[in-house]
């Protein structure tokens, strides 16, 4: 494409159907721990 460069292969829609295994790390969202906003995480599967 000339005007658009997609930089990832998104998985959000697909993950609606699967996922939820819960093996991923907990993610504190406050400032007192390293606030792992969920978006910064990786799926552990």
């Amino acid at each position, binding site marked *: 494409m000339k005007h*658009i460069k997609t*930089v990832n292969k*998104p998985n959000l829609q697909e*993950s*609606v159907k699967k*996922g939820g295994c819960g093996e991923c790390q907990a993610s504190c*969202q406050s400032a007192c721990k390293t606030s792992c906003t*969920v*978006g910064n995480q990786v*799926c552990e599967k």
Partner: protein
Amino acid sequence: MSEKIHKFIQNGMYILLDVNSGAVHVIDKMIYDIMDTFDGTNDDDVVLSLRDKYDEAELREALSELHELIKIKELFAPDIDVPPTFSDIGIVKSLCLMVAHDCNLRCKYCFADTGDFGGGRELMSAEVGERAIDYLIEHMGHRIHSEVDFFGGEPLMNMPVVRRITEHVRKREKETGKVFKLTLTTNGLMLNEENRKFFNDNNISLVLSLDGRKETHDRMRPDAGWHGTYDRVLPNFQKMVASRDGKNYYLRGTYTKYNLDFTDDVLSMADAGFDILSIEPVVAKDMPYAIGESDLPRIYEEYDRLVEAYLARHREGKGFFFFHFNMDLSNGPCVAKRLAGCGAGHEYMAVAANGDLYPCHQFVGRERYRLGSVFEGVTDDKWPEYFRHSHVLNKEKCRDCWARFFCSGGCHANADLFHDDIREPYEVGCAIQKKRLECALMVQAVLAMEKEQS
């Protein structure tokens, strides 16, 4: 109406995020302008509105590219509802053990009131700690992985109990087949050869608290005699990190209104030899160092500066890992996890020194949120259910926000602090979060494109 796209300019780069697919598109100025009008069906309106600015053939070509994205569901992807994979009831997956309600520092911004959580100074007993581990195993169901954080106060003030609990964890792992990841957060004052060896031998991850430059750190993190601590903790941290080959740690700091030029603090950490870094905005109300709405423009500028510095160091071969810019755009968490968020109150709980359970470490001492104890279990069922369902699709201000699947609704404890309601997000926190996300998306886009070119 929920936002399906978010477009923004970060450090000169035009970016379009498709919210419901997670697709990140680097675009040109023409597409950026088109997206003011384009809804997927109105090409002629777009051409009409922009033909004075752009060539019509070029506009049609750009529109055809957008239609291609729609076809593959990477633009205007359908809204996401609560999926069946998000179970109604959470399963406890991690605990934060407040092993010491006491601290040898007097950090001015401490949420725990310098360590005692507004109550008496108290240390957790080994009995409480071991019972907490058993409680976790009894309530983690089929899950294999679990995390336990040693937290405080300052956990090094109760090292004998940290050792006992660690032994218990390793014993129970063998008995149950579960795998525990242990983390300890420390201010570094009592880090010595003996506990360095213990942490390395037992594979305990460390979160090390340093606020950056000496003047920044000493201003906010004095000891109990109000003396600066930077010169004492820095060598301890350097030795600690060197002893584990620079791995398995985080150096994290807090910035306040006093150091809104916090890029210099991050660079100071990097220059001191650390390369796994994080710095977070202070959360405080009515204090001179608190961050308010009027500080936001300055903070936004500073994140732009941090992005520049981050990329410059990366290109010089002196890159560092900055937590908030780290994001896996292709293999991020599933929707169920994005709804569960931090899990406070349903997947994650804090254990106070006396064994009482709270939704998270920040809620310790906020009595109305007491859930029960590791001995009697959860006795107040309403909170776990309420926390479980306080996700972005159930919160008015989050439901429509473009950042909903990245931030997962922000920190419940902060929402409670500012609004007495965990479903009412803390606005300044949201604003900073969104800026950090824009920076992260841009940084990841740059890194992906550089990788492709090389």
